């Protein structure tokens, strides 16, 4: 196993790091501390720069026109891209583009034409609608939204909660029960948000200020059968596949924030003097810095290992679950220690630490809560008998 970066990886990492420091961080001086969008002029200018760098549309597979960058390098880039105030939930304010909803690569040709390609071109946006008020940890059992066949249509009734970006989306993936209980009775529908009966009822305000969540209601919403993604009653596998893959960049984002918070804490501890000496001279502070270093390193190696297995085409479900747990929990600890070292300033909105502290807390719940990740790992190491 190669533990050092190749020349090409190092070059890309340096390029992204410079971009974040020279283009993104200065803009944030003038933005609301809780901002999650750039004004359109800035956005267009920076998208242009990223395209010139050849790094636009990172998650788009090569065959769909994306840059040919492997998942390990993309993970290294994701660690860099979150190293600014809005970086956890709006890394580089989206100017690197994205693939949108990865499940659409499984779509039929007609569905790809209508939804995937426009998404890749940045013309359409989608949302991912799985979680319901009845529970998100175990959606296979909890989904109560029902779809009933009516001729060539399916009629959907029910609702979703905590759905990110649905108010700005053109379409979404809605998981609904079409069969019996459990994972074998769930189907994934592609739903246009202008379909009669589709309602975004409210914003769900959370600790996170970027990309708020929404609550959805479906009232006699007619969706044509051709909008079923994949097969009838096989929607759960589609949801699950995305969730595992997503955990790698999700972890990388947490690590980036931790790296930046740690860097700030180191710097501050050398400058700030109390009782006649810099904070960095005190063992209590040194140990916090040491623990930060250890937390970041172990999260980084676990995340890169998961990415490496994914790159090689090996199973990575367990590794993705492990890095998700370690990165989300250790980043929370690192930011907490960095705040402590900054004293009162640490909790002000003058610094990004308070925003990271709030937003990181969500990371232990989102993309499959950490208890569920532990359950996945236990199932793998003890055997499938565990339910």
């Amino acid at each position, binding site marked *: 196993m190669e533990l050092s970066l190749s020349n090409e990886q190092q070059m890309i990492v340096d390029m992204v790091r410079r971009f974040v420091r020279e283009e993104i961080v200065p803009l944030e001086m003038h933005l*609301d*501390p*809780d*901002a*999650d*969008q750039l*004004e*359109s002029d800035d956005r267009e200018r920076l998208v242009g720069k990223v395209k010139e760098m050849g790094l636009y549309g990172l998650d788009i597979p090569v065959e769909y026109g994306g840059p040919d960058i492997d998942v390990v390098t993309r993970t290294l880039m994701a660690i860099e891209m979150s190293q600014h105030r809005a970086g956890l939930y709006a890394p580089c304010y989206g100017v690197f583009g994205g693939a949108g909803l990865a499940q659409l690569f499984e779509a039929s040709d007609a569905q790809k034409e209508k939804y995937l390609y426009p998404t890749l071109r940045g013309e359409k946006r989608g949302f991912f609608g799985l979680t319901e008020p009845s529970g998100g940890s175990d959606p296979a059992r909890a989904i109560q939204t029902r779809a009933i066949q009516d001729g060539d249509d399916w009629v959907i009734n029910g609702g979703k909660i905590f759905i990110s*970006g*649905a*108010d*700005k989306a053109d379409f979404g993936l809605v998981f609904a029960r079409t069969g019996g209980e459990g994972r074998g009775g769930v189907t994934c529908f592609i739903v246009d*948000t202008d379909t009669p009966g589709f*309602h*975004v*009822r*409210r*914003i769900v*305000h*959370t600790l996170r*200020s970027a990309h*708020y969540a*929404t609550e959805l*209601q479906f009232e006699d919403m007619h969706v044509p059968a051709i909008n079923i993604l994949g097969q009838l009653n096989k929607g759960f596998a589609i949801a699950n596949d995305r969730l595992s893959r997503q955990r790698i960049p999700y972890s990388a984002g947490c690590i980036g924030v931790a790296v930046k918070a740690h860097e700030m804490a180191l710097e501050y501890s050398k400058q700030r003097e109390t009782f006649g000496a810099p904070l960095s001279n005190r063992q209590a502070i040194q140990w916090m810095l040491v623990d930060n270093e250890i937390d970041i390193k172990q999260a980084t190696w676990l995340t890169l290992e998961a990415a490496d297995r994914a790159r090689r085409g090996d199973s990575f479900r367990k590794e993705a679950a492990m890095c998700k747990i370690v990165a989300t929990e250790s980043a929370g600890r690192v930011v907490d220690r960095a705040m402590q070292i900054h004293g009162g300033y640490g909790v002000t*909105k003058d610094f990004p630490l308070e925003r990271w502290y709030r937003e990181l807390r969500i990371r232990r719940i989102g993309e499959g809560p950490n208890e569920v990740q532990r359950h996945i790992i236990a199932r793998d190491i003890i055997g499938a008998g565990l339910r």
Partner: protein
Amino acid sequence: MGVRLEKPFLLLQAAAVKAVQAQMGVYQLADDNEQVLYIGSADARSLFGLRGELQRFLEDPEVTRFRVEVNTAYHTRRQELLMLHQADHGELPVRNRDYPFQLGRLSPA
């Protein structure tokens, strides 16, 4: 928490504004008919929070009413209020028409 801001409007006068908390949050400005003219927020850079923001409008002849909501999620709450206004009236308040960021669509119950 209700989705709409439904508190009664107060008269925009120096004494009333002075009593407003210097906290982060959102506010609505209205005319004599309680028609909302502007939805704003006092963010972390507002020197005296909501109070400071409102003081800027004391001399504005069109604006005669205001109401506030103290809310640390001022950023998303402001967007929500703008979207609600758009859903209810088909357009943004007259002084928010140059709002620079993309807004979503809400269809509140």
